[in-house]
């Protein structure tokens, strides 16, 4: 049987620790000497007996009468084991509150009957929602201080329920309680005969626990590879699905496949089960010598995780310094660590006032924002609502954890991201198309597609593009070239050659190519496009199945000799001229890509190879 963990949250001084102390005392969960210790401390401080001190054990907490950090206390009630997590209510201790709340199965949110809904009452509910706690009960506490008034309780219930609706949280119950007098804690209160719902303990007894989102597909983030003896053992924890001996797995991002040969355990004479399920920390061997390393994700071949240099997410920020719109952070997702750059911040919301800001803004402490991150090497991940454990991450600034993130559907977010500023786009998109992509494909004899040629200047992009356009046209395929120069004389006349402008140039080329592809044509993009992230952006925008990436290259000496635009010659005499691959960054393509050395292979051979591939997809 598993232990049910529940967290107690709410505004400071609304009586969280007192309620827990009372629960522990009334269920007989406290050793006598610990009760005696608290009695002694209270008499030293000349205070009446303080239940809160059972948890607020730190001297500062007792002297100041506040909870600073979380405490976890186990207790047993009617054959079920529970873990109470006491979380601080002060705004400054939000990071501690989250440390406790994030692994709770359920939550009680306290609202003081005398003081009503306060700033942290709202913020904590927003945080619970963010961290995925679905079972929430609201406790209206200190009812003794309002003479157990039904009117007071109802007023708070109505006000707070209205707020919860705005953040899409559904409370299971509203329970009026007096922890000091013990009303509605264990048994139902006789003083509040008007209340028909459960007491706190009755609520717990009836609580059924649902685990976080998991699609049931295998996900095992690799923690380490051990070579203590002649075995090469991969270790990691099954976060979703199951790992079984004899079945085929696939390692991401390398995409290598192998079968699980054995599950290794110590002592060897013990457990001989041939599979491992969710939450199992497992060690296993494969039937092939693959290069596997920490940060890789092992999945079942039929259901792959996502791979991208971009990660779109909702971020809860508790750093003292705000998240900067172009800041660099370290991101940890399962066992993967990546240096990331903030690519864009779409929308920021204060977690208490729910006030929203948009535009290029930062995210301040205790705010939630939609952010796109990018990294020079790809992430392997899932969307959080499909698989929770591989769809969330933490952000670090230096040594400090400064935020948590939930992965959102990337494609949607990109499109929203760029179209947010155009209010009309939303009303345009749902309109039924009179001619569907299938109609076009039937009429033209092929589907739309984007061929993206990347490579350093002089690598042969324009030449190959022309050969492809001719070749497609001769085979009755409607094709058109979108090249860098064409764009720069028109649509991109406002852009220069800085990194930012090159990125924007890439985005525009992708959008234009998408339009052609949607019109049913094959768009051939010939663009240096030096950044992996921008090429991946195009792939996501257009859609994997309609996108073919080609990398053209040749030795530098050959490129210098070809020098179609005199760029290399100018760069030799003018250091201000930035040539990707020579004096500026050119990132080699990663992931799905065909590559050709144009100094060795002929134009005919290269264009035929590409044609064969593309024709097989579009026909």
């Amino acid at each position, binding site marked *: 049987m598993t232990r049910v963990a529940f967290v107690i949250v709410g505004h400071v001084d609304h009586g969280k620790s007192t309620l827990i102390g009372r629960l522990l005392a009334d269920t007989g969960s406290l050793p006598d000497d610990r009760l005696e210790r608290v009695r002694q401390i209270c008499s030293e401080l000349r205070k009446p007996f303080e239940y809160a001190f059972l948890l607020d054990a*730190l001297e500062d907490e007792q002297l100041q009468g506040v909870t600073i950090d979380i*405490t976890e206390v186990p207790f047993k009630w009617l054959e079920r084991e529970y873990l109470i997590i006491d979380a601080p209510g002060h705004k400054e201790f939000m990071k501690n509150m989250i440390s406790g709340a994030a692994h709770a199965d359920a939550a009680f949110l306290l609202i003081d009957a005398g003081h009503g809904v306060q700033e942290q009452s709202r913020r904590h509910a927003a945080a619970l929602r963010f961290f995925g706690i679905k079972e929430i009960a609201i406790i209206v506490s200190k009812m003794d201080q309002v003479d157990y008034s039904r009117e007071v309780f109802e007023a708070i219930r109505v006000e707070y329920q209205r707020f919860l609706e705005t953040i899409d949280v559904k409370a299971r119950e509203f329970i009026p309680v007096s922890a000091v007098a013990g009303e509605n804690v264990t048994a139902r209160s006789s003083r509040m005969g008007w209340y028909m719902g459960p007491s706190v303990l009755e609520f717990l007894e009836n609580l059924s626990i649902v685990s976080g989102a998991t699609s049931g597909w295998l996900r095992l983030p690799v923690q*380490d590879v051990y070579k203590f003896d002649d075995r090469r053992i991969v270790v990691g924890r099954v976060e979703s699905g199951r790992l079984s001996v004899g079945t085929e797995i696939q390692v991401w991002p390398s995409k290598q496949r192998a079968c699980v040969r054995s599950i290794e355990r110590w002592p060897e004479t013990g457990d001989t089960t041939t599979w491992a399920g969710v*939450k199992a920390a497992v060690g296993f061997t494969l039937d092939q010598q693959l290069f596997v390393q920490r940060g890789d994700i092992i999945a079942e071949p039929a259901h792959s995780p996502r791979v991208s240099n971009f990660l779109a997410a909702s971020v809860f920020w508790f750093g003292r310094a705000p998240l900067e719109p172009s800041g660099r952070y370290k991101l940890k997702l399962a066992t993967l660590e990546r240096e990331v750059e903030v690519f864009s911040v779409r929308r920021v919301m204060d977690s208490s006032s729910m006030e929203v800001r948009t535009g290029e803004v930062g995210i301040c402490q205790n705010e939630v924002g939609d952010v796109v991150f990018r990294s020079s090497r790809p992430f392997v991940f899932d969307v959080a609502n499909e698989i929770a454990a591989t769809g969330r991450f933490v952000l670090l600034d230096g040594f400090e954890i400064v935020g948590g993130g939930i992965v959102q559907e990337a494609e949607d977010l990109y499109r929203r991201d760029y179209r947010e500023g155009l209010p009309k786009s939303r009303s345009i998109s749902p309109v039924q198309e009179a001619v569907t992509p299938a109609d076009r494909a039937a009429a033209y004899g092929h589907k739309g597609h984007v061929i993206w040629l990347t490579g350093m200047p002089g690598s042969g992009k324009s030449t190959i593009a022309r050969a492809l356009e001719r070749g497609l046209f001769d085979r009755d395929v409607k094709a058109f070239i979108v090249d860098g120069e064409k764009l720069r004389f028109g649509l991109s006349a406002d852009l220069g050659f800085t990194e930012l402008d090159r990125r924007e140039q890439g985005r525009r080329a992708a959008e234009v190519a998408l339009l052609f592809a949607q019109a049913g044509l094959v768009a051939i993009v010939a663009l240096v496009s030096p950044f992996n992230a921008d090429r991946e952006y195009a792939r996501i925008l257009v859609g994997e199945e309609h996108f073919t990436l080609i990398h053209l290259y040749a030795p530098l000496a050959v490129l210098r000799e070809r020098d179609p635009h005199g760029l290399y010659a100018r760069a030799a005499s003018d250091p201000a001229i930035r040539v990707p691959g020579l004096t500026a960054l050119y990132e080699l393509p990663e992931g799905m890509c065909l590559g050709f050395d144009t100094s060795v292979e002929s134009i005919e051979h290269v264009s035929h190879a590409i044609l064969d591939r593309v024709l097989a997809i579009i026909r």
Partner: protein
Amino acid sequence: MDSLAALEQESIYILREAFSRIERLAMLWSMGKDSTVLLWLARKAFLGHVPYPLIHIDTSYKIPEMIQYRDRLVRELGLELVIGQNTKALAEGMNHTRGRLVCCTALKTEALRQVIDQHKFRAIIVGIRRDEEGSRAKERIFSQRSRNSEWDVSDQPPEFWDQYRTDFPLGEHVRVHPILRWTELDVWRYIEREKIPVMRLYFAENGKRYRSLGCAPCTSPCDSNAESVSQIITELSATRLSERSGRAQDQEHSHAMEKLRLRGYM
């Protein structure tokens, strides 16, 4: 998976995280039930191996059977053992009559600090549990210590979604607490389930047994007739006394353990 198996798997995951992320790692070993379970978990995590040294802080006042047990296990399992001892303080005659907190600080906290400095350890795995006492209840699983081994309890880093703080400035170290979420009862249930051998001192003899082991002058046995692991489990399920009630340093004053631990005590 039941709650005991879930705790075990989590602890193994934590041990592997520490081993993967932190270069110079060692495990504190007091030979007590908690360290014994921790050692067992390490062998599970590393498939029979213990890929880092164990540290025993020897105050010279330990119950003699504990030392015999230690040396036997080191031999049998081929463990790498580092013994830490504040010889200077002992030469000057340090003992509990000078004040229990003074003695604990000199012979345990300071001895541990010396070992960490000398071996440049960056992480120490410690078998503390939240249910032992109040200040331990406030701990993180990966808990940073300053250059002087101090614990800043008022400003601990966030820890959630099993993402632990494994990066920290040079000169500081981290205490790793793999069994933080276990209770005393969990430890005994696990010893029973896995049939892990533990020291005789835990079992009743003439109506007394040790519930928690420490230095001889400051540890007293409790009344008990529990002669087997299952009898201990039955006894603990009904007890009204806390585990460390036989540990004198805890009773010294109201926040004794907190004060010790802020300065680097385990």
